[in-house]
C-alpha cells in the first residue's frame, strides 16, 4: 500500500530531476543543427593563413565588403596560390585540395556559422562601418562574431550567435539620436497594442569564450560606463540599435 502511494511521487521526482538535469546539459551542449564540431572534408588551417601569413580575411571571403554574405572562396582561389607553392604540394591536405580541383568539384565545406533561415545578418553593413569607416583592423572586426580565427586549426563557432547576443552589442551601443529615448522594442511597440510589455527582455548573455581583445565580450555594465565617458562626437561612431524586427527578420 505504502509502495503504491510512493511510486507516483518517486516517478514525478525522477522526471523533475531529469528535466532539471536536462536544463544543465542543454545549454552547454550543442543544438541539433549545430555543425560546429562536425568533421569538415579536410581541415582548413585558419591559423596558418590568417595567423602566420596574415592574409586579410576579405582576400578569400571577398563578399563580406559588398554583400550580405561573406562567401566561401571557390576552389580556384585556393589553387591560384597553391599552384605556386610547391613546398606544400605533397602534404595530405593539399593533395586532397588538388583532387577536388582535378575532379572539377566544389569542396563540400560545412557551414559553421549558420543562422536560422528567418534571420538576416548583413556582412556588408558591419564591414563598411567598422573596417572602412572606423578604420578598425579586419581581424578585430571579424573577430567580434567569429572569435579569434587566426588561432583556429579548424573552423569553429565560439560565439553563441543568438538574438540576445546580437542585442548585447546593439542595444548597448546606441547612436546619439537614440540617447534618452526608451529602448527600441518599447519605442516601436504598436500604439494600439493591448500590452505595453517590452517584447525583447534580454539578459545580455556573455559569449561562450572570453576574449579580452574584442569589445563585444565586455560586461554590459562596463560597456555602458565606457560609452558614457565618450565625448558626443565619438558616441556617434557607435552602432545604432536595430529599430524594428524587420531589420533582421523578414
Amino acid at each position: 500500500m505504502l509502495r503504491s502511494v510512493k511510486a507516483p511521487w518517486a516517478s514525478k521526482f525522477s522526471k523533475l530531476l531529469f528535466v532539471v538535469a536536462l536544463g544543465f546539459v542543454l545549454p552547454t551542449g550543442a543544438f541539433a543543427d549545430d555543425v560546429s564540431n562536425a568533421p569538415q572534408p579536410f581541415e582548413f588551417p585558419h591559423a596558418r593563413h590568417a595567423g602566420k601569413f596574415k592574409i586579410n580575411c576579405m582576400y578569400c571571403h571577398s563578399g563580406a565588403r559588398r554583400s550580405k554574405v561573406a562567401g566561401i572562396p571557390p576552389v580556384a582561389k585556393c589553387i591560384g596560390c597553391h599552384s605556386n607553392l610547391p613546398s606544400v604540394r605533397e602534404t595530405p591536405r593539399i593533395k586532397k585540395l588538388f583532387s577536388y580541383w582535378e575532379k572539377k568539384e566544389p569542396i563540400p565545406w560545412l557551414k559553421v556559422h549558420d543562422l536560422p533561415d528567418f534571420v538576416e545578418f548583413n556582412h556588408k553593413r558591419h564591414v563598411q562601418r567598422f573596417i572602412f569607416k572606423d578604420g578598425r583592423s579586419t581581424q578585430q572586426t571579424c573577430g567580434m562574431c567569429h572569435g579569434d580565427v587566426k588561432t583556429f586549426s579548424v573552423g569553429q563557432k565560439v560565439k553563441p550567435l543568438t538574438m540576445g547576443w546580437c542585442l548585447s552589442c546593439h542595444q548597448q551601443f546606441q547612436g546619439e539620436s537614440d540617447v534618452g529615448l526608451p529602448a527600441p522594442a518599447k519605442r516601436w511597440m504598436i500604439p494600439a497594442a493591448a500590452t505595453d510589455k517590452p517584447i525583447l527582455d534580454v539578459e545580455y548573455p556573455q559569449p561562450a569564450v572570453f576574449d579580452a581583445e574584442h569589445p563585444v565580450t565586455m560586461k554590459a555594465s562596463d560597456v555602458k560606463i565606457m560609452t558614457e565617458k565618450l565625448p558626443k562626437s565619438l558616441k556617434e561612431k557607435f552602432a545604432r540599435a536595430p529599430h524594428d524586427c524587420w531589420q533582421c527578420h523578414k
Partner: protein
Amino acid sequence: MSLSRMLDNWSRLNQRDYYKDEPIMWGMSIDLNKCTGCASCVTACYAENNIPAVGKEKCATGHTMHWLRIERYWDLPEGEADLAVEESEYPERGAHFAPMMCQQCNHAPCEPVCPVAATYHNPDGLNAQVYNRCIGSRYCGTNCPFKVRYFNFFDYSEDIPHPMEMLLNPDLTVRSKGVMEKCTFCVQRLRNAKGDQADKGIRGHVEDGEVQTACQQSCPTEAIVFGNLKDSESKVSKAWEDHNVELNRHEQFHEEGERGYRVFEELNVEPSVMYLDRVRDTNA
C-alpha cells in the same frame, strides 16, 4: 492589465502624430486610369517574395495565396438594371481593375489583435509581419477589412522540385506552415536601399526612385508610384498633393479633376495607399 496601462495605451492610440519625427513613411499611389489589369504586378510579386502558387483547387477551398491581387469590377450602363444588360447590344462597359495589396494602414486593425505581437507598426510606416514570431491564430486576417492577409495552410515549400528552389529569393524567409503573411512593400529592397544610403553616411533619406517595389517595377503603364511620403519632392507625395489626399482625414474633398481616394477611408484605418479613380464616360 492595470488601469493606468490601459489609459496609457488609449492615449497612444489617439496620438495621431506618433511617427511624426520619423524621416521616412513609405506610401503608394495607384492610378486606376492607367491600370490595364495585365497582372504583371501579380507575377512580379510572386517572383520577388517567394509566394507559392497554390493552384485553382486550393483557391476554391479558401486557401488563396497572393500578396497582390487584381480586383475586377464590371461597370453597367447608367440606370440599367442587371437583367437588361444581357439583352442589350453592348452588354457591359468593360471591366475596371484595382490592384489590391496590404494598405499598410496607420491605424491597422490587424495589429492590436495579434496575441503575440507578431504584427506591429514599424517606424517607416509599414505594417510589419514577423514570421518567426507568428503562431498562426489568424486573428489579424479576420480583422483585416481589405482581406489581404494570407495564411499558410500547408508547407508549400516542400513541393518545390529539386533545382527549382534555387529560384527563391534569398533576401527573405520562405514561409512555412501555420504562418500568416502579407504584402511588405518589398521590405527587403527598402532595407537594402536604406543600408546602401547608410554606407554612404546618409541616414533617414532615400532618394526618390532609388528603390522600387516589384509591382511598380513591372508595371508597363507605370500606374503604381511608390516612395517616401515624408519627402515633399517625391513623386508619390506630389501625387497625393495633386489629388488633395491627406492622412488623418476619413473623407477626401474633391474638386474638379481630383480623383484620389483611399479604400475604406470611413473605417478610419488610415491606409498608406492612395488610388486614383478611373474616369468613366457615364453618358454614352
